[in-house]
Structures are given as structure tokens and as C-alpha cells.
């Protein structure tokens, strides 16, 4: 809703795999993992010795010569043991992961999709499994099942399944609530088909990421058990080699190095893969689009414009004057402009309606006025003259001082624009104390007055309430109260009534009008509804595809729209002539509208 418009929205986003491969680090890491797995699989071919074969006479030979990495305490080739040990270590981790995904995935799927008693039981079971440290459970289990690696990893898989269960259940629940799933059910698709087609597709990516993480954990835990000496001593394993090397650390310190490197390498690779996947999925990579810089021409023109404004006298002096504003977003390959030259004016006490359809750039324009463009966006050209000074060039500190105090903002969606963790009272009081330096008590009193002013029936109760405890209409009134709390000169209202019920809309508009008159504020009212414009605005500006196509006094524009687009918009408004005739069945039916 208020995120940056996606410049690449035309094509479908590339698949997860493609995105991962594009990331250079992800590619290197994947290749490393593949190499390790291949080495383990091809161990008999790669190793020149049998891992159990050796003689005391060859013991503790250093690297080089016959043995690339040297030999251990009984003359066995280290490289061979490392390669064959990879099999055990990787297979053990794989076993844990498979058990975890099968148990956790299936039960999470059922719990999330069907819910009910299974969900409750599963959640409870998962909590128990997550309540105990894995290592301690494995130690206790070892006294029962003995030193077998496979048993230990299978049991660990059961422990890990709890986290997979939670992940899958959460994701499935979220998907289940999506409208398209309901649509699919209405269309008659069987549950199984829905699961396979829709649900699994969404669950796939998070589970893959989870798999990479838990694989890393499984390897670490398995090696840890073996390092403690509790593994199976008859087969080569990384942890066992670590244990052995540690015992001989004074005789041949290098023995500890090789298994350490393997464990660290594989765990690091898995963690990085998980991270790259996560970043690719959520698009939260470190590199984010940078705001494009202002172009040279615009910078030069700033000085000229400042001088020019002094001469401008067109009725009252505009408090805000936007000239040739261009807003762009950084995309691979350059800059994509969403606002391509907008001119606006607002005078004190005047309401300017800014109208246009979705994507026309009107919200971007008002964000730019407040310098609150989303990440990746920036003003690339033009000026935003506030009392003659181009605020596009203001420092952050100066802009912050302006916001809330001189320029205020009312957002579109009331519920998501209040901090859910703080009371309404706190959120009203905080900025007032910051800007106006009021004492807590004075600010509190003032807040109560403001709430009453915007028509809230029980101000003290609302002050103590949390945002989720009030209705949408009340929330919007609170936001309005907050916006005008410091008596700003310019009020920017971004579709303030769109998200509200029709009956409430009228009240909110009434409040806005009365406040505007009382405080003699300039208002920029963004909307897509001509009715609102007709109701409240003095002047109107029509935007289409990033430019203002028509601007003028409301009554004149309504009476005689000039621009073909404006006329198109007016034509689209339903009037009485547009009502269809009543639907007539074969045979006599009653006439008249229903």
C-alpha cells in the first residue's frame, strides 16, 4: 500500500533458485557443498587407502609423502578417514533432517490446514520437544539405546521436528487464511489438490531455508557427541577424529585441524546458504536500492527559483509551491521515474484536492513534500518550495523540525498507522512534548481537548486505550487529532476516508473542514473520489501517470473540464442515467428498480 511501486512489476519475480544463483556468495557456497557431498560419495575412488587400514609403524606421520594429510595414532590415512567420515557425518545429519522434515512437515501441514484437536496436540508436543536441550536428551537417550550414531540422529531429528512443525504450521495457517484458498475451495478443488498446488508452493521456500539451518545444527551436535567420546568408535567420523586429535594434541596438533576445518566449512556453508535463501526470499538483502541523486540541472535551477518566487504574486502567497517535481526509484540499470514533473500550489487556508487514479503518483508527491519517500526513492528534479525555500535541500534535522510542527500528515489506513505497543494517549503526548516543550500534565490536558475536538465521545478512556481497542473511525480521529496537535500550517491528508465506512466518512470530512477553518491551515487532500473533492476542496489538481494534467478552481474544473483525461474521469462517475433497466425474466415481472 505505501511501499515503493515495484518497477519490475511487469515480469514475474525470478524463482528462488535463480535469485540464489545470481548472488555470487550463494553460488560459491552451493558449489562448495556440492563438492563436499560428491567427495563423500566418491570416497572409495578419491581415497588411496582404506580408512581402517594402517600399521603402527606409520603412526603420526605428518602431511606429505604417501599420506596427503598425514596419519593418525595407529597409522590410518587421515584423508581417507576424513572422506569416509564425511559419509557418516553427512548421512547422520541427513537422517536427522529427513526425520525432522517428515514428522514436522506432515504434522505441521495437517495442524495448520485442518486445525482442531490435532493442532492443539501438535503444538503441545512441539513445546515439550523444544523445552529440553537436545544434548541432554541425547545423553539420556544414549544410556538407553547405546552408542549408535543412527539412533542418536534419529532421536535428534524428532527433537528438531518441533521447529519444522512450528514453521510449517504457521506458514500453512497464513496461507489457509488467504482468499485464493477459499476461492479454490469454492471452485470445488479437493483439499489434497489445494494443498499440493497452493499450500506446498508457499511452504516450500521457508522449509528449505529451515532445512539448511537444522542440517548445520545436526552436524554440530553429532560431532559434539562424538567429541565427548560418546560416538561409535568403530567407524570414522569427524567428531571422532576431533576427539582423537585432541587426545594427541601435543604429539601431532595437526590432527585436530582437519576435522575442525571440515566441520566449520560445512556448517558455515549451510548457514550462508540459509541466509542467502532467506534474503532472496524476503528481499531483505544488505544491498538495497539507493535513492537516485538529484540531477545537475535541478540543482542549478534551485538558486534561480528561490529568487523567482519572491516576485511571484498570484492572489495570496503560496505557503507551498511545487515546481517540476520529479521523483525516481533506483532500479537495476538506472532510474525509474514515477513522478515526471509536477507543479502545485497551496495557499494558507486553502484546500487543494489532489485527484487521480491508483498509480498516478499523487501519494508519492505528498510523500516527497514531507521528504518521507520509501527506501530507494528520491527527488531527482524540481523544487518543493516551503515559504520560498526548497525543502528538498533541507538537512534531516531541519526537516524533522518541520514535520509535525508546520507540516502535518494524516495517513490513509488508520489501524496500521498507530504504534500497537503504546497507548493512544502516549502517542498523542509524545510529539507535543517534543515540539512544544509541554509538561506531561499540560500535554495530557491538551490531548484530551484535541480528542474532544475531533468528536471522540469519551476522551479519558480513549487516552488509556491501545490502538487495537478502538474502531477504525475512532483511530482516524485520533490520527487527525495528532496531526493538528501542534497547529501546523500545512496539513497533508492522504485519502483519509478511503478505508472507512461511508457513514463515518462524512463525519471525518466534516471534522477536517471545521479544523481547517479554525486553524486556517493549507490542506492538500489526496483522493480518488470526486465527491470528496466537491465537498471540501477549493482548488483541484488532476494527476495522471506522474504529471498534473489539469489544475484550477474546483467549480470551474467541475463545470468545464479541459483535459481529455479529466473528462474521462468525470464520464466514469455513475449518474442516474447510468442505472440499468431492471432485469426482466421471460414472463411478466414487476417493473422498477430493486
Amino acid at each position: 500500500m505505501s511501499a515503493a511501486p515495484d518497477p519490475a512489476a511487469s515480469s514475474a519475480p525470478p524463482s528462488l533458485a535463480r535469485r540464489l544463483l545470481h548472488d555470487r556468495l550463494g553460488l560459491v557456497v552451493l558449489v562448495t557443498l556440492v563438492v563436499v557431498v560428491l567427495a563423500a560419495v566418491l570416497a572409495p575412488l578419491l581415497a588411496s587407502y582404506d580408512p581402517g587400514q594402517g600399521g603402527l609403524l606409520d603412526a603420526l606421520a605428518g602431511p606429505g609423502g604417501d599420506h596427503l594429510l598425514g596419519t593418525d595414532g595407529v597409522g590410518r590415512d587421515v584423508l581417507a578417514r576424513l572422506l569416509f567420515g564425511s559419509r557418516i557425518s553427512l548421512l547422520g545429519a541427513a537422517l536427522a533432517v529427513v526425520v525432522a522434515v517428515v514428522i514436522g512437515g506432515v504434522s505441521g501441514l495437517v495442524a495448520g490446514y485442518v486445525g482442531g484437536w490435532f493442532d492443539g496436540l501438535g503444538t503441545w508436543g512441539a513445546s515439550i520437544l523444544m523445552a529440553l536441550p537436545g544434548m541432554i536428551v541425547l545423553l539420556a537417550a544414549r544410556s538407553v539405546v547405546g552408542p549408535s550414531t543412527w539412533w542418536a540422529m534419529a532421536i535428534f531429528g524428532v527433537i528438531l521436528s518441533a521447529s519444522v512443525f512450528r514453521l510449517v504450521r504457521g506458514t500453512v495457517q497464513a496461507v489457509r487464511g488467504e482468499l485464493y484458498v477459499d476461492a479454490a475451495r469454492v471452485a470445488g478443488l479437493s483439499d489434497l489438490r489445494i494443498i499440493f498446488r497452493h499450500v506446498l508452493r508457499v511452504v516450500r521456500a521457508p522449509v528449505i531455508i529451515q532445512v539448511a539451518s537444522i542440517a548445520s545444527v545436526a552436524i554440530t551436535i553429532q560431532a559434539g557427541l562424538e567429541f565427548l567420546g560418546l560416538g561409535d568408535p568403530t567407524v570414522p567420523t569427524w567428531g571422532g577424529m576431533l576427539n582423537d586429535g585432541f587426545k594427541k594434541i601435543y604429539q601431532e596438533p595437526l590432527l585436530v585441524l582437519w576435522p575442525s576445518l571440515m566441520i566449520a566449512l560445512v556448517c558455515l556453508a549451510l548457514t550462508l546458504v540459509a541466509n542467502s535463501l532467506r534474503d532472496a526470499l524476503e528481499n531483505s538483502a544488505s544491498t538495497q536500492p539507493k535513492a537516485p541523486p538529484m540531477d545537475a540541472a535541478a540543482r542549478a535551477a534551485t538558486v534561480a527559483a528561490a529568487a523567482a518566487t519572491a516576485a511571484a504574486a498570484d492572489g495570496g502567497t503560496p505557503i507551498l509551491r511545487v515546481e517540476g517535481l520529479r521523483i525516481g526509484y533506483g532500479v537495476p540499470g538506472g532510474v525509474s521515474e514515477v513522478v515526471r514533473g509536477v507543479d502545485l500550489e497551496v495557499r494558507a487556508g486553502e484546500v487543494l484536492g489532489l485527484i487521480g487514479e491508483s498509480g498516478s503518483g499523487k501519494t508519492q508527491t505528498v510523500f516527497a513534500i514531507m521528504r518521507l519517500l520509501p527506501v530507494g526513492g528520491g527527488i531527482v528534479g524540481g523544487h518543493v518550495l516551503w515559504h520560498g525555500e526548497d525543502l528538498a535541500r533541507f538537512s534531516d534535522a531541519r526537516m524533522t523540525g518541520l514535520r509535525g510542527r508546520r507540516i502535518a500528515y494524516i495517513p490513509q489506513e488508520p489501524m496500521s498507522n498507530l504504534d500497537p505497543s503504546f497507548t493512544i494517549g502516549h502517542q498523542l503526548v509524545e510529539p507535543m512534548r517534543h515540539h512544544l516543550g509541554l509538561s506531561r500534565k499540560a500535554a495530557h490536558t491538551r490531548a484530551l481537548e484535541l480528542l474532544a475536538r475531533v468528536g471522540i465521545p469519551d476522551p479519558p478512556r480513549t487516552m488509556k486505550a491501545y490502538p487495537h481497542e478502538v474502531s477504525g473511525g475512532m483511530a482516524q480521529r485520533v490520527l487527525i487529532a495528532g496531526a493538528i496537535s501542534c497547529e501546523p500550517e500545512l496539513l497533508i491528508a492522504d485519502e483519509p476516508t478511503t478505508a472507512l465506512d461511508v457513514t463515518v466518512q462524512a463525519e471525518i470530512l466534516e471534522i477536517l473542514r471545521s479544523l481547517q477553518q479554525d486553524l486556517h491551515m493549507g490542506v492538500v487532500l489526496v483522493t480518488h473520489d470526486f465527491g470528496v473533492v466537491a465537498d471540501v476542496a477549493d482548488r483541484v489538481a488532476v494527476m495522471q501517470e506522474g504529471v498534473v494534467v489539469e489544475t484550477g478552481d474546483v467549480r470551474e474544473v467541475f463545470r468545464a473540464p479541459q483535459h481529455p483525461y479529466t473528462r474521462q474521469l468525470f464520464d466514469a462517475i455513475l449518474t442516474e442515467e447510468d442505472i440499468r433497466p431492471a432485469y426482466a425474466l421471460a414472463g411478466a415481472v414487476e417493473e422498477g428498480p430493486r
Partner: protein
Amino acid sequence: MLRFLARRVASGLAMLVAISTVAYLLIYLAGTDIARNLLGQNASEEAVAARAAELGLDRPLLERFIDWVSGAVRGDLGTSWFSGAPVTDLVTSRLGVTLSLVVLSTLLVAVIATVVGVLAAVRRGWVDRVLQVVSLVGAAIPNYLVALLLVTILAIQLQWFEPTGYVRPEVSLSGWAMSITLPVVALIISAIAAVAQQVRGSMIDGLRQDYVRTLRSRGLPEWRVIYLHVLRNAAGPALSVLALLFVGLLGGAVVIEQVFAIPGLGSLSVSTTTQGDVPVIMGVVVVVAIIVLIVNLAIDLLQGWLNPKARLS
């Protein structure tokens, strides 16, 4: 709030019962000949039989379980088969040691990871990337490897720290601090990454929320927006990770305590596992489960306090 508390406690107790029952059945079914292991190779058959009878090993399983349960609810977890000491005493004397290690580590991780995560989320760019790589490398290396490295270099070679031993805080606070520095460092290095990632992710999500723009539009200084508002909202999920972290650190403490010869629950688990001293293993499992349930409860409460919506659910 009270109902929420009561419900959580009841759920916790149910879990405890389930864990204890399953653990008891599994462990006692292991069927090791304890009496012989206790008395060693030189003991005679009569001695072995006498000790077995003394330990009650000839009674049916259900009877022994009921005995154990009735003792457990009164705080008596039986006696160690190997040292004859009451399990409750054994476990509680070592519990403090492990807890001091794990709680301190958890707090340090929470603080450091928060700083790191917030910085990474707010600054982005190269700061973010460097922090990610560094903490990932730290996470990839198992904590026992880090511990070995620390002991060898800092304790034995440079002699900045004692290589083993644990000084109780009541004996000497500075001694305690010195003795746990290396173990704590080994424990937290791997853990910081996980929590920092979570904080970073939550902060990034939080910064994208609508209300952040609205707060900024009210002219609040950026530091207030980030630390007072966004961080507060991001803390909820981060606390969940912290709860998991606590459990993970308890497991990590097992190996760390071995390396540093710290007389905590971890080293107790290992030695009793190899010996097959079942009452002590049971005691450790039960006590650890209780600790974890308490910590989870505390974090739930904290999350509830932080997130008003959760208080009602």
C-alpha cells in the same frame, strides 16, 4: 493477566509430568547391571546381589516409578547409585553453577545481539554486510572448538586466565568473573549471530511498517522512532528466539563444562551417562525441564507486557 498466568503454569506442569514419565520409562528400561558396575570387577556375587537389593532394582517398574514420583513432588529425587548422595542436593548444588553461566551468557547475547542487529538494520550497506559475515563465521564454528582455542591460547600459553575451575561468587566475586570469562565467551560467540539475525530481521520488518512513517511525520527524532517504538515492537519475536537460545545454551554448556572442568549440570550429565547413574540422569532431566519451563513462562510474561494485543489472548 492472572488467568493467563494460571493457564501457562498448568500447561507447564502437564508438560513436566509428561517429560518425567517418558524419561523415567525410557531410562529405566535401559537395563544396565548397575550393581556390578558400581562395585567393580573385584566384588563378589553376594556383594553385587546385596547392593542390587539395596537399590531396589528387583522391584517392579511401576512400583519404583510411583515411589519416585511421590518422592519427587516432595522434592526428593532419590539418591545417586554411585555416590550415595541425594540427587536433589547433587543437582541443586550444580544448578547454580550452570545457571550462572547460562543466564549471564543469555543476557550478554541479548544486549550485544540487539546492538548488532539494530545497527545492521538501520545502517545497512557495508556495516550490515560485515556484521553478518563476522557473526556467521562465529556461528559456524562449534562452540567447543572455540573453547579449545581459547583455553590453549589465552589460558595455557598467555596465562591470562586459569585454565580450569570455577570459583563461586560468594567466595570471591572477582574470582568468579575470571573463572567464567572464557566459558561465557565460548558460549556466546556462536549464539550472538542467531539472535542478531532475528533482531535485524524484526527491525527491518518493523521499519517498513506504516506507523513508522506516521511517527516520523509527527516530527519525532529518528532515535526515538527506532529505539522507543520500532525496537519495542521488534522485541517480541526476538524474545522468542531468546527463549530458544536459553535452551540451546543449556545444551552447549554440557560440552563447555567438560572443557573447562566446571562442576555444573552439564558435566554431571556426561559423567552420569557414561556411568549409567540413572537417578541422577532423571534428576537432571527433571530439573532442566523445570528451569526451561520457568524461563519460557517469564519470557511469555515479558512478551505480554511488551505487546498489549497478546495480553488478551
